[in-house]
């Protein structure tokens, strides 16, 4: 438990003791500029490109043939498309919420984690953003969802969840990008200065053109940041204000999702516990994916001194607490339905527990709740491998949770004649795997060109250099 209460301590450091704030910044900049771990990166990039090929193939077939290729039917009009969309949004909102909460609460250990979490939020919503467009049936008319002046003099239907979704995802994308980029500005300035130093050292050697180009591009991206007192004052306030906006948009998205479900007449979507359950589930999957990617980054890039067992222990504690909250929410909503629900609600509950797709329910409960219990044991929560693996299992559990919630309800609502079996189709899975490829592709580019560990936040952790008197 001591990982939670102690601040930066020499016995269990958040940064390896041989590092000071100059060397941490130089390490991060060096890794980003010099492209170490080159072959590992290229292997992963090749895999990402192949998955993007899968995405292109399945979306191409979808556009040619229609949404039936996903296995969607009447009444299961929302199947893997909305499951995948909700899963990505859950991961994105969860990691954005974690990053902004840690900032607003002043957690000093966020340095190694926050940039990664913000990146997951930004790229996760890019992967999610594909779905609402391609599942429209006629995706080339997606802009009909937005209020724009048009010759038909028509407005969108503001009472429709489709419109809410369009505004939600645009807002989330905007806020996530601004949060990510605002935090990045001083680090980009750091990168610019290291790139200039590298350029000066490389004078007269081959490759100078690219070193200069890199310095110029980082310089443009850094917007002319010089780290003056005025800059820092404005930056700190702005960063915190945008973090607060991030929390608002996360709550709006997750609670909004519950309101959207409740806006239908379908049984099983009207529990007052659902908004809380969605937030718990989103946070859990966000922390899980952050933990997994953190352990991958630690494996691929030479960041072992900066990403320490203490970070994994803290993420482990978070996952543990959130999994218990998730269990509580499930228990409450299942229990309330069993005790007080009407016949249709109880019918959905019984299909969830032992229907055709009961595996989704059991995988959701078992994968989201049981594996994090390993983190009661210090050995496991301090291990990057265990945190990474548990993260994958928990993320799979979150996917099953969305599947249970959407497909099992839609398959059978009020009339026996309206029920129709559904089974997962190959192209539904291929599209989901393809969006994973899109995420991986973008993530690898960020890993390659952007300091994925926040230099400024790391420096806050470390004691200043000793005062040196000249002469």
């Amino acid at each position, binding site marked *: 438990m001591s990982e939670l209460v102690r601040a930066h301590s020499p016995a269990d450091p958040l940064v390896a003791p041989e590092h000071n704030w100059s060397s941490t910044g130089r390490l991060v900049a060096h890794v980003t500029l010099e492209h170490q771990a080159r072959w590992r990166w290229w292997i992963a990039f090749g895999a990402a490109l192949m998955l993007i090929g899968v995405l292109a193939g399945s979306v191409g077939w979808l556009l040619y043939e229609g949404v039936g290729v996903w296995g969607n039917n009447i009444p299961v009009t929302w199947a893997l498309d909305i499951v995948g969309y909700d899963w990505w949004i859950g991961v994105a909102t969860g990691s954005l919420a974690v990053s902004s909460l840690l900032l607003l609460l002043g957690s000093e250990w966020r340095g190694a984690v926050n940039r990664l979490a913000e990146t997951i939020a930004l790229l996760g919503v890019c992967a999610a953003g594909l779905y609402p467009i391609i599942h429209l049936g006629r995706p080339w008319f997606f802009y009909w969802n937005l209020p724009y002046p048009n010759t038909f003099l028509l407005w969108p239907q503001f009472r429709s969840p489709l419109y809410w979704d369009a505004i939600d995802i645009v807002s989330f994308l905007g806020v996530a990008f601004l949060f990510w980029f605002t935090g990045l500005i001083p680090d980009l300035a750091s990168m610019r200065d290291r790139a200039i130093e590298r350029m000066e050292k490389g004078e007269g050697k081959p490759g100078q053109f690219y070193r200069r180009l890199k310095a110029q591009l980082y310089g443009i991206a850094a917007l002319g940041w010089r780290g003056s007192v005025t800059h*820092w004052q404005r930056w700190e306030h*702005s960063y915190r*204000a945008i973090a607060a906006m991030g929390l608002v948009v996360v709550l709006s998205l997750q609670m909004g999702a519950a309101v959207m479900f409740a806006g239908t007449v379908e049984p099983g979507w009207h529990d007052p516990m659902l908004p809380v359950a969605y937030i718990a589930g989103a946070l859990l999957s966000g922390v899980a994916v952050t933990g997994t990617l953190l352990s991958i980054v630690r494996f691929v890039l030479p960041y072992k001194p900066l990403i320490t067992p203490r970070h994994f222990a803290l993420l482990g504690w978070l996952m543990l607490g959130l999994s218990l909250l998730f269990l509580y929410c499930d228990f409450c909503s299942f229990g309330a339905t069993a005790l007080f629900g009407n016949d249709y609600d109880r019918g959905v509950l019984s299909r969830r527990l032992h229907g055709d797709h009961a595996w989704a329910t059991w995988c959701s409960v078992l994968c989201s709740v049981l594996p994090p219990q390993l983190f009661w044991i210090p050995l496991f929560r301090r291990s990057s491998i265990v945190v990474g693996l548990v993260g994958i299992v928990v993320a799979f559990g979150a996917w099953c949770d969305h599947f249970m919630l959407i497909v099992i309800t839609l398959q059978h609502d009020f009339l026996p004649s309206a029920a129709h079996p559904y089974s997962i189709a190959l192209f539904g899975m291929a599209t989901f795997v393809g969006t994973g490829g899109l995420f991986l592709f973008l993530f690898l580019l960020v890993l390659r060109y952007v300091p994925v560990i926040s230099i400024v936040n790391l420096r806050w952790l470390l004691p200043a250099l000793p005062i040196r008197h000249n002469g």
Partner: protein
Amino acid sequence: MAEPKHSSGAPLWGVSAEFDTPEAMLSAIRSLKPRRFGRIDAYSPIPVEGASEALGLPPRPIYPFALGASLLGAAAMFGMCTYATIWGYRFDIGGRPLFSWPAFVVPSVSFAALLGAIVVYALLLLMSRLPRLNHPAFNTANFTRASADRFFVAVEARDDSFDADAIEAAFVALPARPHAIHRVPR
């Protein structure tokens, strides 16, 4: 007195001293500020607590603008939904109420956050006078280390009374002496 010049012949922008620690930077600001040599600014790799107070910068709070912009965003989205459903495009479905406000809440809250974030970001750029491609501070020798491990205190020449020698002497006389002192061309 003639316009102060750098040794290269370019007009002088200011004199900048390079320190190792935030404490040394703060004490330099505090001791030079009352002596009215010129406009003082400091450049550091991390935010230094107390620096803006030492420089006497006016507190320019960003939070009221964030709140105001969010409320404006919420009102704008809510207002548009209300206008369209009640007046702009009346669509009577079985006599249901036209002003169905609960349906407008979710997009209003999301849009509030978006507008708040955009306004905060715009204010950050506006108040920091960014983006810009160059600034005389970048002419300081060794300035790349302002983003690594050095703290710079610069006194800028704003008029002809600027006395570079006196400022250098003041920097040298500090208890925590600077690592280096640079004259910076504009």
